């Protein structure tokens, strides 16, 4: 057991998996000598060499496209796109090929690759460095889209993503990279893709969230408990797509009240799908309309105003109280 940050936990997952499987290749901009701009791949080029950790030329389409070829041959490329805001330069490779090769070749080829990329606000960065656009990738059939919410799960989830036979988009909440530490066991842990997690049990209200928004959601839950005596159930989706609706449908059947919290823009965001599932599968259990606490339908402002854009504890608490009042 060691007490480590998410950056270190991700590094541990990569290191241990690379030791086990020499088909795992890392590639991306600055992932080698520099150890990645957030240091997630620190020390790996020294340990595994330039054949397995590739400092690529500056081309996202090149990184993802080449990974697809490697994966088709049976390797397990784990590529890094420096910020999710630059992943659109590889969008066509992901949409037109990574997500389709299995289907197009009728099972002859598949693409067991992972695209790791930091997403989300809260680090006072420049334009294109703060957005939360998981919906783009969650909307692509053939692709899996996952987001961890802390060091321990990040490590386990990355291991499972690497071993998964299908292409996985792995969004890393950059605001949490060094925000807190968790005990992470040395021995192997996995986290099944397509399964959400019950993080806090409660009776009165269900909060559904993921990634960086798990922290304000949990803080809001504890404030509601302390100040209002409201017992909130909190669910971490972990996988955005394919969405596991079993746990949250069950939970809402129990509580009758639901909130979805994400920093992505509201319209057509993951919340829209979650609410639809609840309407389809738990409609008669709902006591009040479902509420969404999300980013606004605008581009996330430059950092002086980003805190007004991002959902926060206050906003979540207020919305929860509203739900309980009705």
């Amino acid at each position: 057991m060691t007490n480590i940050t998410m950056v270190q936990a991700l590094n541990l997952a990569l290191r241990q998996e690379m030791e086990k499987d020499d088909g795992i290749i890392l590639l991306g901009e600055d992932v080698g000598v520099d150890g990645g701009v957030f240091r997630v791949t620190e020390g790996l080029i020294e340990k595994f060499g330039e054949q397995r950790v590739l400092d690529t030329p500056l081309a996202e389409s090149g990184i993802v496209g080449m990974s697809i070829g490697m994966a088709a041959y049976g390797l397990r490329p784990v590529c890094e796109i420096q910020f999710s805001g630059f992943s659109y330069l590889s969008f066509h490779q992901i949409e037109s090929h990574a997500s389709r090769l299995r289907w197009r070749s009728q099972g002859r080829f598949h693409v067991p690759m992972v695209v790791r990329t930091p997403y989300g606000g809260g680090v006072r960065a420049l334009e294109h460095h703060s957005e939360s656009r998981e919906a783009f990738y969650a909307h692509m059939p053939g692709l899996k889209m996952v987001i961890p919410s802390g060091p321990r799960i990040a490590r386990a989830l990355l291991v499972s993503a690497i071993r998964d036979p299908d292409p996985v988009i792995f969004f890393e909440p950059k605001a949490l990279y060094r925000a807190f530490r968790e005990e992470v066991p040395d021995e192997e842990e996995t986290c099944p893709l397509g399964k959400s997690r019950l993080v806090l049990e409660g009776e009165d209200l269900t909060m559904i969230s993921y990634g960086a928004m798990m922290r304000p959601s949990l803080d809001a839950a504890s404030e509601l408990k302390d100040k209002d005596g409201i017992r909130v159930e909190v669910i971490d989706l972990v996988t955005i797509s394919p969405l596991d609706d079993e746990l949250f449908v069950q939970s809402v059947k129990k509580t009758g009240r639901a909130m979805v919290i994400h920093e992505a823009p509201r319209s057509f965001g993951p919340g829209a799908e979650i609410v639809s599932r609840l309407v389809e599968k738990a409609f008669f259990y709902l006591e009040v309309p479902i509420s969404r606490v999300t980013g606004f339908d605008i581009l996330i402002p430059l950092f002086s105003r980003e805190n007004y854009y991002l959902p926060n504890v206050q906003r979540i608490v207020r919305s929860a109280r509203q739900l309980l009042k009705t």
Partner: protein
Amino acid sequence: MPRNKINISDEIEHLSVLNEKGQLDKDLEPEISETLLLNIHRTMLLGRRFDERLLNLQRQGRIGTFAPITGQEAAQLGAVAVLRSSDWMVPSFRETAAEIWRGRTMESLILYYSGFNEGGRIPDDMNNLPVCVPVATHLLHAVGLAWALGYRKKDDVVMTFFGDGATSEGDFHEGLNFAGVYRTPVIFVCQNNQWAISVPRSKQTRSQTLAQKALAYGIPGLQVDGNDLLAVYSAAKEAVERARSGGGPTLIECVTYRLMMHTTADDPKRYRKEEEVQEWVGRDPLPRFQKYLIENKKLLSKEKIDRLETEIKEEIQAAVERAEEQKSKLKEPLEMFDHVYAELPKNLKEQKAQLAGELSGNKKEDGHD
């Protein structure tokens, strides 16, 4: 059916006028008016000192991340100095000196790097596009602008800036190709500063030069000493004249060096040696140009430079103060709903009202109840 040689142009020249020892090649010396020379020098010095001040502000937490330009002033100013104001400039994210030359105020830059969208506003009479962070993506915008100028029968040209790393992106190649196919009046200025964050130029491409990439697209390419203001100016002048007279695009590779960190979030000690940096300090474009102005042109003196330094220091200080004053007036978060659409759609009107309600509620909670 033998293998016959196809004769294509495969010549790439390297241009140097004022070498690193400050020796001048008289035959190549461009004709530049005294006023222009002094203006260029002033902006070079201002760019350098402003960079230092920005770094200082960043370290104090008063502004956010920015990309320093120190060492690249000649590559930027030698090129933009050739433009007239009706021409267009399409920057990437490391063109502070060029932007100042084109009329961007220091306070707008400070505001932008302080995380205020208002700092990105381009005045209506300035033909610049805003800063572009996604590498190489703006090259095609430059080509489109240039095509539009031709369509409207204007004799203005477009100059765009980007780095060595940018030449690896697909958009770079599409940009050069489109410009070649449509013969648009665009000048591609590559600031080859040897590094793309931690990746050295040698790992970016197997090509011996970046300038030679022009040849594949049937357009002229030229490599210049990017720390030699006179060489950059000459190359840019030739390219701009060609573009203006209907001769189409040019790629200029300015060989220069990023003397500071990639951005303030970067630590260059992780990937490059101090000796390399020191080698390039010896090729610094600023003292080289100053020596030329003092010794060859007799336009400057040590005293004049000192006076200029004081003047510039005050000018920067005034800009910092103006920026602080503007920031204090810009606390209004509701403005983040501005400029997303021409007209705010209904869902955004609702969301804006929701935030407004929240903000006035907060005031109450803060004790005005």
